[in-house]
């Protein structure tokens, strides 16, 4: 009798388990089926935070445009943020923490400071957030994907542009931004490697300025005053380009000094057309934003990333080719 009772109990348990399995299964099916309906719903969107070096510049505006386009396409919710000036890594670190708190699944990040941002990024990864680096790298091996201009190659491209000038002697002055920003240093390195091979070249001076128009203009004027022999100026980001352009405009050296600058700010393009700037290295910020968000999508859905390091192309634009069809599309972004 007792064994019979035990068997009966076993049966009851088996039936109970089956019923529970059934209910769970049906729940699962229903949730799966209803997932069709809620696929486009706001509440199911995955959140991706974009933390840039700044938010003002044309470069970053274009990055955000690309990011927004991709977020619409991949149905992700994104926020864009960045410090007011391009030296403020502390604010950036706070933004990383905040993004983690807000439940970001992926942070798309561009580092103000190669080393000072590393800990915050590592901490975020530890919290389970994937990190995609765009534009400017950070000293962390936990980054899932890096999407940026090949900065060294961009520097070499700038160097090549300098060597195209037909002057007999090239006395070069370099106006670079924050020494701690990885991309600026890589560009300068590429530039130096390219030009130093040529016998005409003489690098007269190199300065690091704060990445604002005023500061770089100041620095440039100072440098030109100290070294009047300078006939080529190279500078490596949007704000310093504008500063250098302003300085040339103010000093009236448009004909005497050739300028190689970076990025396609409308003002820089204007300076290219009017001749203060002689060559622009145009990056592809739209692609950075777009591909960054695309990578985030792949990470969220656990799809394999085709590459962990993507080189967004750079283009050398001069006054001669700036209005050609192909270069128009690179140089002028759609607003």
């Amino acid at each position, binding site marked *: 009798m007792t064994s019979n009772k035990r068997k009966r109990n076993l049966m009851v348990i088996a039936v109970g388990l*089956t019923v529970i399995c059934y209910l769970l299964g049906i729940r699962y099916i229903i949730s799966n*089926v209803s997932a069709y309906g809620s696929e486009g719903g706001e509440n199911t969107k995955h959140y991706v935070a974009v933390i840039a070096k700044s938010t003002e510049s044309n470069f970053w505006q274009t990055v955000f445009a690309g990011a927004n386009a991709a977020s619409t396409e*991949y149905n992700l919710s994104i926020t864009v943020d960045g410090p007011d000036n391009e030296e403020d890594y502390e604010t950036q670190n706070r933004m990383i923490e905040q993004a983690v708190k807000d439940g970001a699944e992926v942070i798309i990040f561009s580092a103000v400071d190669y080393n000072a941002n590393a800990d915050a990024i590592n901490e975020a990864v530890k919290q389970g957030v994937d990190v995609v680096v765009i534009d400017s790298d950070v000293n962390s091996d936990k980054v899932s994907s890096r999407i940026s201009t090949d900065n060294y190659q961009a520097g070499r491209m700038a160097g090549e542009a300098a060597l195209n000038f037909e002057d007999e002697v090239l006395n070069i002055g370099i106006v670079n931004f924050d020494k701690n920003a990885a991309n600026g240093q890589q560009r300068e390195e590429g530039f130096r490697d390219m030009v130093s091979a040529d016998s005409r070249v003489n690098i007269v001076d190199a300065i690091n300025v704060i990445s604002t128009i005023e500061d770089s203009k100041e620095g440039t004027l100072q440098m030109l005053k100290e070294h009047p022999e300078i006939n080529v100026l190279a500078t490596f980001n949007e704000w310093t380009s504008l500063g250098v352009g302003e300085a040339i405009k103010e000093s009236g050296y448009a004909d005497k000094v050739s300028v190689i600058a970076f990025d396609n700010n409308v003002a820089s393009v204007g300076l290219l057309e009017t001749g203060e700037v002689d060559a622009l290295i145009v990056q592809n910020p739209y692609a950075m934003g777009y591909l960054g968000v695309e990578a985030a999508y792949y990470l969220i859905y656990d799809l394999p990333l085709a590459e962990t390091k993507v080189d*967004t192309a750079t283009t050398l634009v001069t*006054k001669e080719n700036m209005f050609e069809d192909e270069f128009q599309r690179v140089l002028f972004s759609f607003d």
Partner: protein
Amino acid sequence: MHTEENMNKSRIRKSISLSALMTGVVACIVIVALVTVLVVFIKLYENSMEQNSITSSEQAVVQVMNTVESYTKDMEEIMQMILANMEQESTVRDEFFHNLMQIRSDVVSVTTYDEAGEMLNYWSDELELKETVYQNLSYREIEEGEGMVISKPHVESLFADYYPWVVTISQRTQNAQGEEIMVCMDIRFSNIANYVDDVGIGQHGYCFIMDTEGNIIYHPQQQLIYSGLREEKTEMLVDLKDGAYPKSSVIYTLHTLENSNWRIVGVCYVDEMITSKVENMIRICMTLLGLALITALLAGLLFSRIFGKPANQLAEAMGEFEKDAENFQFELVKGTSEVTALSNSFSQMVVQVQQLMERVRQEEVTLRKTELKALQAQINPHFLYNTLDSIAWMCEEERNEEAVEMVNALARLFRISISKGQELIPLAKELQHAESYLKIQNFRYKNQFTYHFDVDPDCLHYLCNKITIQPIIENAIYHGLDRMIDEGRIEIGIHQMEDGICMSVEDNGVGMSEEQCREILYQDAGDRIGIGIKNVHERIKIYFGDKYGLFIYSELDVGTRVEIRIPKVEEGSYDIK
């Protein structure tokens, strides 16, 4: 016994049990059904999805086309107004342009050129014309009678630090002075671009604009395309007429704008739409499959409990019945009505078979008893003649006392032999019977042998079959002592055993071989010795079971010991069967 049982069980296990069969069949049916459904569903779904995708791309593309067309129509109308105003006074004209720019913020500028391409006039919303225009992208020479021309999108290159993307609509006309001039209106392209950007087809589908030569006019991802990070195979689309073209995983939908060389292309990725849903479907089906398997398993379990297990129990019971029908006790097996019916019938059958067997056994026993009783009544006539002869001879010799003793012994012998027809008599009587017989034979054989009784008096009140010792003694005398030269000796003992009584008859005669011992117990003795030893053996067995009976120990030339073992049966405790 045990090994046989195990063999039986393993034989049962080797063949598939009904419940396992059930589970398997259900599982197979479910799997086949689900797979079929899945395949059919996927096929149907793919087809309907493709149709859906085609329809939705078609709709999206037509919508884009309509929007772009209505926008260009709008602009053409504005152009007509502009042309009409060209003949007005310059103050009126300026007023008109000022208002136009205010109302239509998407009109960037209007410029006029003479036949040589020199700019005559420009109107814009307070934009500053460059001192030197490096390249004028808005101007294009218009042939006479060409009508209205819409340019490709380009950058506005006339104003300082202002580079919006525009398309230029140009037309030839005459001004107030009747001179041939060309009017060019630059319209911001971002309206169309933004619109195209926002058109989505499916999850990742999009629209783009190309011209009839396959050059991309506008593409939402053109920045990626121009930098080589993306590819759009427009050359493949150039030759296609308007319509929808499914190409492997992509559906291209093309529509050409009216009065223009622009074509709207919709790109829709069927594959990912389907695969993601099919994956979902497969997941659901797998869950269903799991559920169905669980159900099948449970059903099997239930089935085995309800039917399989009782069936096995029945089968086992039958096996046991087969082995030992007599002592088998059947417990009813519970289960479904079929099983209970089967179990009930089997139970009845068991009872009937056992009753039948009992009856047969009883009949057989009765028959044997009758038979044996008949035999037991036969006293060897030679014995009687010889005894009477001896008595006569004694009387003749006037050995009256001895004669009297002989007659008495004979009389006792017969009385006990008859015993009112009872089979079981007390041991005491049986002993008397044996003693009488010995006495008679001793007279007859002139004291050729001696005999001796060793009796445990506690045994005397127990019952035993009558005429059991006498045939053994008879055998001992005729076969053991008859041919002996030395004096024979017969020892009769009655002792208690653990579970019965042992009566023994031991002689020092010629003895027997083992074969002879067996023969005596199991073969008919013939009629030489009245009631044979076999008869005694069988009677004891019939009355008390196989455990009891005769046991013979014999050695040639040494002697024979016959033991009769019976249970301790007291008067009234044995029911005569």
